[in-house]
């Protein structure tokens, strides 16, 4: 763990999330190494998505949800009520299970966030759009129809556009909530390639139901069960030699 500790991009400390009386996430402390991919796995309802959504305070939207504990990003505890959530979320990109592009043109989907954050120059915006689309390997597919609606794209393209949209506001962290589970195998493969490419620049946390995917894309894997973090280690170790029996059971498909 020592190598991880020195390069941690951010970490959580005793992080709990409650929905009303129910404790969905139980006192979790995790470190996320800079520019590595961490996969969160576990059966449905184990709290992995809830945990992910508390890393950018997205749970604030759910009535009755309450966070306890700390999440430290860039020397700032984002669970502090004084945190400017709007500014915080700019540093953390998010991608959802179902692609959710804005009902705008392809160009606007990407330029919109950057423009909001103060970049008004048309050339600079063009450059940002191109860069973001190139990073997500979409540029060649869409460069001739940037002004068309994003909703005309295929599901896989839409999902890559959503990643490009997050990247364009220059976050340092990307949160992905089952980003490929609604896509066909070819699109899934493309997303996985993309993750491998993106981790050169971003710290990525990905929730997935697909164990093979976790094994393929992640450097480290965390196994969640009933709101607890059961085991967190190098992906290879988790999949070949887990130290807990329940991890082994889950990975080998005995439950979940």
């Amino acid at each position: 763990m020592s190598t991880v500790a020195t390069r941690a991009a951010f970490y959580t400390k005793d992080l709990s999330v409650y929905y009303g009386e129910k404790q969905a996430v139980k006192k979790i402390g995790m470190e996320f190494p800079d520019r590595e991919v961490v996969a969160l796995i576990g059966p449905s309802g184990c709290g992995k998505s809830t945990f992910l959504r508390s890393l950018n305070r997205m749970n604030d939207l759910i009535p009755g949800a309450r966070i306890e504990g700390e999440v430290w990003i860039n020397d700032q505890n984002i669970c502090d009520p004084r945190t400017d959530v709007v500014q915080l979320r700019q540093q953390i990109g998010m991608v959802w299970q179902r692609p959710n592009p804005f009902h705008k043109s392809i160009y606007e989907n990407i330029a919109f966030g950057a423009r909001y954050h103060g970049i008004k120059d048309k050339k600079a915006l063009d450059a940002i759009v191109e860069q973001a689309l190139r990073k997500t390997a979409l540029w060649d597919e869409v460069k001739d129809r940037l002004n068309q609606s994003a909703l005309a794209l295929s599901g896989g393209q839409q999902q890559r556009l959503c990643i490009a949209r997050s990247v364009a506001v220059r976050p340092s962290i990307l949160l992905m909530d089952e980003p490929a589970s609604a896509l066909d195998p070819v699109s899934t493969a493309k997303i996985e390639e993309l993750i491998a490419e993106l981790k050169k620049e971003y710290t990525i946390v990905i929730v997935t139901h697909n164990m093979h995917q976790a094994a393929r894309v992640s450097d480290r894997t965390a196994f969640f069960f009933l709101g607890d973090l059961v085991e967190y280690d190098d992906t290879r170790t988790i999949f070949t030699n887990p130290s807990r029996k329940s991890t082994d059971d889950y990975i080998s498909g005995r439950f979940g």
Partner: protein
Amino acid sequence: MNLPETRPSADPATPRNAPATAGAPAPKPAGKAAKHRLEEWRGQAFVYLCVLLLVVIIFSIVVFIASRGLTPFVSQGVSVKEMLFGLEWAPEADHPMFGALPFLFGSFSTSLLAAIIAAPLGICAALFMTEMMPKLGKTILQPAIELLAGIPSVVYGFVGLSVIVPFLRHTFPGQGVGIMAGAIVLSVMILPTITTIATDALRSLPAGLKEGSYALGATRWQTIARIILPTTLPALLTGVVLGIARAFGEALAVQMVIGNAPHIPHSLFESATTLTSIITLSMGNTTTGSLHNNALWSLALILLLMTFLFVFIVRMLERRSKHA
């Protein structure tokens, strides 16, 4: 722990607030924080103002109408009993009389009769759209109902006056105008309300409920009569009550066909009047502050209180249908 910003980067769209290309400097965080807070503050101020306005409007409606409407009882010597049960309305007489029972009778009888006509029709229409021919219902019946809802009330009044009143005059003894004419016009006007709410209620029934009944060999009508209608009864009644509320408050269409004679009629085909009709006809001919004028405001207050009562009943029924 290394801070991520220390990592050098040359790529324009790289993360961590690296300097942007083409001379667009990364905005200062402090300035941006102020900007998005200001924007949020302005937006919220606007929406809260709009809501406040709604609250102010409703309170002033109640306060102003009540203050006028209560004056005859408080300081002009008219008793509540006289107004609610008196049969004689003679506001300009030497001994002015303010019996509003004929108006109350007219309002209640037209709206209840309208509901009696429209409720079965509306529920049948809803059954047609949900249980029988959903496709035909959606393409023909639903747009027809929506159109009926859109036709202005003066047009209903005009058609009532030029078609229904002459028809009733030829078919039944009397002048044609009266409660029956008013109720027929109103029934068409409230049909969309009843149908729409009944349709929503029937659509939201769980499919398993019906299938269970069909599986037992029940016919469609048996399923409708024994399962569907009893389960959705509170919601169906909600629609009927909303229909009655609308009929009760409708002014011009009824006024045009009811005849406007201020007494309780002996038959459905004899001239009568309603609360809204008398207000519509007399309000313009009285001077502000006179007893006659204030008495009309008392009638408006009764309309207002009835609205509250209808909303209350609807709320009760909705609570019922949620628990069911």
